């Protein structure tokens, strides 16, 4: 363990600084002389690349063969950043147009108008013709008629009419209301109703049709007064398996009236 305490008296006591300095100088000169001497004597007589029997070899590694991703070739198309400025466009000398060929533009020739035979005008009738009866109603414009969202079928012994409560649906998809009416009417067996009690009576049945076209929840809206007629109407709806998928909407409610006219 070195003694780290500083004692000035101890330092000045053996003041051999001069002797140490010259010692160090001699040592450095000796080392420098040794290096210079070694360099002078070592490999003396041969140089790199010299045609000698024991010539050294140098391997040069091409940068391009390094297994590194290839460098993108820079496109020198940027006009402003390009190192070789693009040449200025050539200014073509002005050319004068050759004069047009005299036969280039076809001149219209005179065309004779085709002769058209005159149509014989029908001779005016000798006797005054009766005028067709004039409409005695004010004409307010052509209309396609008003669509009532209801479909009525005349049956052999009654009338069946279907009405959709959604009026937009009924007029837009009248064909569907027709199918509903036709299908239920085909399944209405009128002989289930007692003719003595049912003649001239009507029953109205409500039912829903879901998206797939299946009827559900048939209920009697207006009773006819003849229980057998009411029952036959309910059964007509219950017999139907489906009307086909609804063309629009989630469900519709149909009001169906059975009218029993004759046995």
């Amino acid at each position, binding site marked *: 363990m070195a003694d780290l305490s500083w004692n000035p008296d101890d330092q000045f006591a053996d003041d051999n600084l001069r002797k140490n300095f010259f010692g160090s100088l001699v040592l450095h000169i000796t080392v420098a002389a040794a290096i210079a001497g070694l360099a002078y004597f070592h490999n003396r007589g041969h140089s790199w690349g010299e045609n000698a029997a024991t010539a050294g070899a140098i391997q040069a590694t091409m940068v391009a063969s390094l297994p590194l991703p290839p460098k993108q070739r820079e496109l020198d198309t940027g006009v402003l950043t390009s190192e070789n400025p693009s040449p200025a466009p050539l200014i073509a000398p002005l050319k004068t147009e050759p004069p047009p060929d005299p036969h280039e533009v076809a001149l219209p020739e005179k065309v004779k108008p085709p002769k058209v035979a005159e149509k014989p005008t029908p001779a005016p009738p000798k006797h005054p013709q009766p005028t067709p009866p004039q409409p005695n109603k004010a004409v307010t414009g052509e209309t*396609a*008629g008003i*669509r009532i969202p209801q479909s009525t*079928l*005349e*049956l*052999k*012994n009654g009338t*069946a009419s279907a009405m959709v409560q959604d009026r937009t649906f009924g*007029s*837009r*998809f*009248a*064909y569907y209301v*027709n*199918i509903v009416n*036709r*299908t239920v*009417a*085909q*399944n*209405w*067996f*009128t*002989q289930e109703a007692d*003719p003595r009690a049912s003649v001239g009576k009507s029953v109205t049945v409500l039912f829903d049709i879901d998206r*797939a*076209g299946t009827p559900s929840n048939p209920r009697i809206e207006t009773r006819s007064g003849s229980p057998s007629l009411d029952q036959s109407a309910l059964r007509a709806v219950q*017999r139907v*398996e*489906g*009307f*086909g*998928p609804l*063309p629009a909407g989630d469900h519709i409610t149909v009001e169906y009236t059975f009218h029993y006219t004759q*046995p």
Partner: protein
Amino acid sequence: MKYRPARSLEKLLLRPAGLFLIAFALLTFSSVTLQAQDWFKTETSAGVSNIRLAVADFKPASVDPQTASLKQTFDSTLFNDLSSAGIFDIVSKSLLPQATPGAPGEINLAQWSAAPANAAMIAFGALGTSGGRLTVNGFLFDAKNTQFPQVLSKQYSEEANEEMARQVAHRFADEIIFRLGGGIPGIAETKIYYVKVGGGNKEIWAMDYDGANQHEITHLGTVSISPRVSPDNSRIAFSSLGKDGFQIRMYSLLLNRMVNFSSGGGGTNLSPAWSPNGRDIAFSSSRTGDPEIYIADSNGGSARRVTSFRGPDVSPVFNPKTGSQIAWISGRTHLPQLYIMDADGSAITRLTDGGYATSPSWSPNGQFLAFAWDRKYGPGAPGGQDIYVMEVATKRWIQVTHDIGRCDFPSWSPDGRHLVFANSPDGRASSTRIVSMLADGTGRRNLTGPGADMPNWSWK
């Protein structure tokens, strides 16, 4: 008594519920204690007619030389599909207006809804070919609704050839039938599998529902009978004569080759029948010496016996609606009769009361059984084998073929409105042909010439 069976009997069967009345009429017919009932009528809802549909010739949309022949194919196919659908009153082509509208803007509804066409609905459109493509625009218009006439509009673009022209017509017809026929899909794209007799062999063939496009399926060089297509149209089960007698074999329509079906157990195995979920196959097997009904899974494994009575049990068919009932033919009381039972072999019910009943087919809604029946079977007895339809719940039946020779092997169409069957006008097996008709016996059409037998209508 006002009794008018002629028209209504046939008409009624197209509506399932109508059979109640038909049967009622038949009961009245045969009843000895017939009482005059003044109010009784078989006409249920007289005056309700079918939808009157006009099918216009499509307008050629291009002057390609191919267009004319494709249009001819398309027009005739569409007309035939719609007229054989059984739910329309088709306007005769001679009553149609001269104009051929090709687009909604070109049609004059009043022209079609007025006499003589009197159409309630009009199917029309345009057909053109360009660059090898066939483009069809089809429309269905409600002639009576001038404000919103359009019911349906469809566009098809397919490769331009005769086959695709027929396919497009089938698809458009099916759309119309689906829309106007109560939501039951049309059958114009379905197939019929059948047995073709030729050169001592019988091979399984297939054709479209209208008899077109007949082509061979199997090339086994032996006798293959009773083809039954699976519910997903992927496989055909049939019985084929091999070195160990008749065995159930299976042909894959997806791989176009035979696939394995090992019914096992030996004996003669006949008449396979698919369950509606496609997982089970019922067949008759004589592995115990007596033909009995077995049910195996779809590749022949785990076969189990469901009938156990002395006497042959053959021709099983599943109830396609529920899959939980089997109708079959049993000879336990000497002559073959039609029976039904639950799929586990319980609740056996005999449906026919006599005669000689064969080859049942269960209607897709599960309500009816069609079968061939010779009601006066025996030596010297008059009568022939005809197709009958029976309502399962009530055992009431009607006869749907009359005086056209020997009829056998009925098969229901997937919409339940048609039947296909084998018919031999002179009773000889060689002249058997395949005939389709509406389920009420009307609209009969020959689909093939002689030499075709055992039709089976695909499930969809």
